[in-house]
């Protein structure tokens, strides 16, 4: 996504700061206060957004470790519904908590670099004549086609897409 969350949040903050808040009449104190709170919320979200997913994983790892220690400290771990559920959850959580997730900013930069490299290789392929160029063109059309669907789905509820109803749900797109 070229316009990622930090870009969107910064644009919201600028609109509030530059246009909306200065236009609120001084006597509309509640509106002014809430507009400023919106701006503050957004500013805080902007500082968190790159790291939000990693922090959530850290939290999962943290509490999984705690749960493991708590289970271990039970004197006589006789079977119980709670204990069975705790062990199942731990089994599910531990591999996820071990995932090494890059910050979103790093992921975005890597994606841009991979796009750029693809573009240069495409140009080289097009320079190598019709047969290679055609093969490269088909690869591009295939991959771009699938990415377009992904991006259309991401904004299908925004009202831009004439054929939004034919698109899959966001939760079903990988």
């Amino acid at each position: 996504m070229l316009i990622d969350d930090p870009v969107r949040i910064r644009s919201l903050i600028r609109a509030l700061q530059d246009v909306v808040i200065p236009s609120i009449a001084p006597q509309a104190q509640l509106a002014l206060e809430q507009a400023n709170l919106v701006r503050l919320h957004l500013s805080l979200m902007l500082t968190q957004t790159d790291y939000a997913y990693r922090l959530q994983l850290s939290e999962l790892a943290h509490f999984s470790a705690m749960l493991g220690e708590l289970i271990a400290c039970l004197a006589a771990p006789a079977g119980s519904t709670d204990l069975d559920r705790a062990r199942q959850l731990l089994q599910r959580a531990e591999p996820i908590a071990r995932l090494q997730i890059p910050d979103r900013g790093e992921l975005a930069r890597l994606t841009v670099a991979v796009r750029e490299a693809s573009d240069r290789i495409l140009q080289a392929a097009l320079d190598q004549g019709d047969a290679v160029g055609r093969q490269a063109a088909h690869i591009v059309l295939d991959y771009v086609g699938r990415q377009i669907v992904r991006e259309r789905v991401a904004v299908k509820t925004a009202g831009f897409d004439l054929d939004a109803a034919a698109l899959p749900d966001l939760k079903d797109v990988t």
Partner: protein
Amino acid sequence: MSFDPKQHPTEEWIAGLRVRYPTERYVDRALTRKLHTRIGPTYHPQTVESVAGRLRHFLEREIQGPFAVSNIGTLTGGASKEQFSFHLRWQDAGGDTRTERLVLRITPGASAAETHRLREFQLMGALQGTLPVPSPRWIDPEGALFGQPCLICSFCEGVTKPSGEAASGMRTSFGPDYRKALAPQFIRHLADLANVDWRKHDLSAFDAPRQETREAVIQQLNWWERVWAEDSVAAEPLLTLVGRWLRDHAPTVDKVSIVHGDYRAGNFLFSPTTLQITAILDWELAFLGDRHADLAYVIDPLFSERNENGELLVCGLCTREVFLDEYARCSGLPVDPERLRYYEILMGWRNCVIALGGGSRCAVGQTSHQDIMFAWLVPGVAPIALGALRELVKDLF
């Protein structure tokens, strides 16, 4: 955020782009100015107060005798230029006092499509009496007096969409009565535009391409390839692929016409009571070239809307077949399917360049007055524009 060299252009880089992509003189001026402005401080939208002072300062140089500016207000709807309306009271050359509502169009810190005010000013002048267009009054083409390039033109009454109709920002939904009244006018005005004898007018801000050559297309490709090189925030291989194809298959132009360049629903005003088109707006992307470019733009699926029966209507007004047949009849000019196909691809490619290039750059760079609009439109429009382009070219390779 990592360092982005395009956001901090050097003189050497700018000079390199100007050599690599030779464009029309005034296109070059506008694009080069954009890059110089990008280096400057963060742009903040104009306030009514700041506009009032600068407007008075500007008009003092343009109007002999007393004048008064009042009722300054912002106009919405423009993602490209900052627009204000105001009332001007002054004495004309005959000494009579006149009051008129006018529009001030200001080049902001950045916009999705950077253009030169003189080009639209000259075109509005050239088309007076031929098409319903705002009447141009004064211009500060380089911003020497106003501080930013701007122009002043007459205010035209009208609306861009039926009252209560939803609009996505790119599409407009017209009911049957509106379509019946508006579609024939929409087509006729475009047909009239293609037949304007532009050589009779002062269009010195345009570099006219020669007929029966590929110059008109090459001008367009250089213009928008330069924009892509200046503005893109990430590579898009589909645009590279299609850009190559467009250059390899550029057709000649059988008749050089004025091309509006952004002719669609949303860019004309009509009276909600008489349903007469009162003004064709937004001439900033106009150029001299092939009329098929305008035809291709009108039928772009990005601007299409379905009617009550699910039928696809170009610009929400009529079917593609009706549009093209009526255009040929009204203009007396042939519609060549092969050229039309080429320009569908060219204009679809240009849509992507504007959305993914200029639009994204505005949002990422925070250099326009409408960052929030671009941050909203680009993710919504770009995949649709790319999808439409892919559909057009998928069998070409």
